[in-house]
């Protein structure tokens, strides 16, 4: 904290300083010490609801959920407005063609919890459903574009993980053959793979033969799955290096590494297909820790009465 610019001391600087001054090895990140404005972590509270005479501000106070019903009223207003515009158009005798539509691609409705945060009230499942149904009814109208700003408040973007990842372009080796690299981990194994185009389909693992390293069928199936999926079983020469863990961890790591390297050889559409087939997703399962007072992760000591 010493020697920092006091004028421009941002939240990021505070976080950095706290983690330096009060280092914590706790696994759960929420349990570590922090210094933030209370707004960030205390739940939002309702503003005052009564005036000096003791009467509620909102005419919907006695419904029990004034903010929610206010929102419903607002949505219903939007629906009426949109329908009125359509009626006016029809009365004028103009056609409905050419009205732009609301772009809903890459977004979805917010969840119940998020809506509860907006209205600061507890909601039932059917109340949430009623609200979403109302918004969907607005969307069905031809003039829904008018209410776009209101509707988009209740939609969230779907973050595409894939679009962030950069696929490396193909490289050329000294013989003029295209190749690409990939590396991945599974359990406690890690693997790196070089796919060389125009080969005979030979697979070597740490310089040794494929069959000798993986003598169990399931492991060989695992490794060949991405190539089988892409119908490219005899196209590449595959050179794998892997270390750590056992055969199933190693074969899983090699499988993911091959799929990653394969992305450079196929088009974007096929990459999406590979993702849907689960080829590009890391297997997050790891070994469960041993607990004190127990024999293994789950197994208990033999129970003896005395």
């Amino acid at each position, binding site marked *: 904290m010493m020697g920092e610019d006091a004028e421009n001391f941002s939240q990021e600087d505070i976080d950095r300083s706290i983690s330096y001054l009060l280092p914590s090895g706790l696994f759960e990140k929420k349990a570590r010490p922090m210094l933030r404005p209370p707004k960030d972590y205390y739940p939002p509270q309702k503003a005052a609801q009564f005036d000096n005479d003791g009467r509620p501000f909102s005419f919907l106070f006695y419904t029990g959920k004034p903010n929610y019903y206010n929102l419903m009223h607002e949505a219903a207003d939007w629906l009426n407005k949109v329908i009125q515009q359509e009626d006016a158009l029809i009365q004028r005798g103009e056609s409905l063609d050419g009205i732009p539509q609301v772009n809903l691609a890459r977004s979805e409705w917010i969840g119940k919890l998020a809506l509860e945060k907006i209205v600061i009230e507890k909601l039932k499942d059917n109340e949430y459903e009623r609200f979403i149904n109302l918004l969907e009814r607005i969307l069905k109208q031809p003039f829904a574009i008018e209410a776009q700003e209101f509707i988009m408040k209740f939609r969230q973007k779907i973050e595409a993980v894939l679009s962030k990842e950069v696929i490396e372009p193909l490289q050329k080796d000294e013989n003029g053959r295209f190749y690409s690299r990939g590396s991945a981990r599974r359990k406690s194994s890690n693997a790196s793979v070089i796919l060389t185009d125009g080969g005979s*389909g030979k*697979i070597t693992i740490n310089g040794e*033969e*494929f*069959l*000798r390293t993986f003598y169990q*069928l399931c492991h*060989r*199936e695992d490794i*060949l799955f991405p*190539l*089988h999926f892409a*119908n490219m*079983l*005899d196209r590449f020469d595959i050179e794998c290096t892997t270390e750590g863990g056992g055969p199933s961890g190693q074969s899983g790591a090699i499988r993911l590494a091959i799929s990653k390297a394969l992305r450079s050889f196929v088009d974007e559409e096929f990459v999406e297909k590979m993702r849907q087939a689960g080829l590009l997703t890391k297997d997050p399962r790891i070994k469960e820790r041993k607990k004190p007072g127990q024999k293994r992760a789950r197994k208990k000591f033999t129970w003896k009465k005395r």
Partner: protein
Amino acid sequence: MMVRRPALEVIDYIRQTNFDQLAIKYVIYGRKGSGKTMTLNHIIHHCQAAGWLIVHIPTANGLNLKNKYDFIDSVSHEGMYDQPTSSTDWLKQFKLRNERFLKELKTTEKYVWNKRESTEKDQPLLSVLEQGLTRPKNATDVIGVLLKELQLQSYNKQFKMLYAIKAVNGLFAEETAFRKHGGYIIPVRELTLHMHFRNFLEGDWINGSIVTTVDYNLSYRQPKFYYTPFYLLGKKGFDHMDPFIPVFVDEYSDKEFESQIAYYQSKHWIQDEEANTEAGKLYLKKLSDMNPAELDKLVSWI
């Protein structure tokens, strides 16, 4: 049926051999499941069809491990051990194969088994063998006598002989599974049965051939995937076998793979519809890595 190149090669050598010379040794080697034993079997079949006498050890490595309580103090060799059960088993299959020869060939000297029993000179060798079957205690010695007689009488050129051993490195191994009461593990060098087979392997006989394989299956040697004769036989075994002709059995070539798949299809062994297509064939090729045994395992359930 497909007889592969290594078997044809050895059969070709055997056909062109000058049988006036000492027996030539062949050592077949290769990776696990590459078809060493099938190669040996094809050669044995060829010789059997040609009317040869067959001396066959089905697995020499197995002799060190199977029947592990089957040992008694040797009758004829002090400080060594006989194996009655293994020996009688071997004698039975030897009799089944070569009864024709055993009736014709005669003993060259008198053999005394114990105080009361003996085999006179000029008796058929079959009577010697029957002694081993009726008195299992003498079975191992009977094998020694039979092999000695065959070695001596090979110079008369009455018969041609094939000595075929699978996993010959078992005869030159060190460890066995035989454990005496008190914890003493009997080494291979103290087993008379192995000694007789080893002596016969020296090749002091003519009018025949010696065909062997080396195999790391059932062997105590680590790592288990080295398959060269020198590694598996060891220095001692290599010197004992020297000189020999090494024959390498490789995995399937593309052509062999195709014909093997065609064989499986003709026998309706591959039932899966996808496996019968070109893409399926390619997948089988990659999964089995062109290894005959691995392919056989794969197609057994598809």
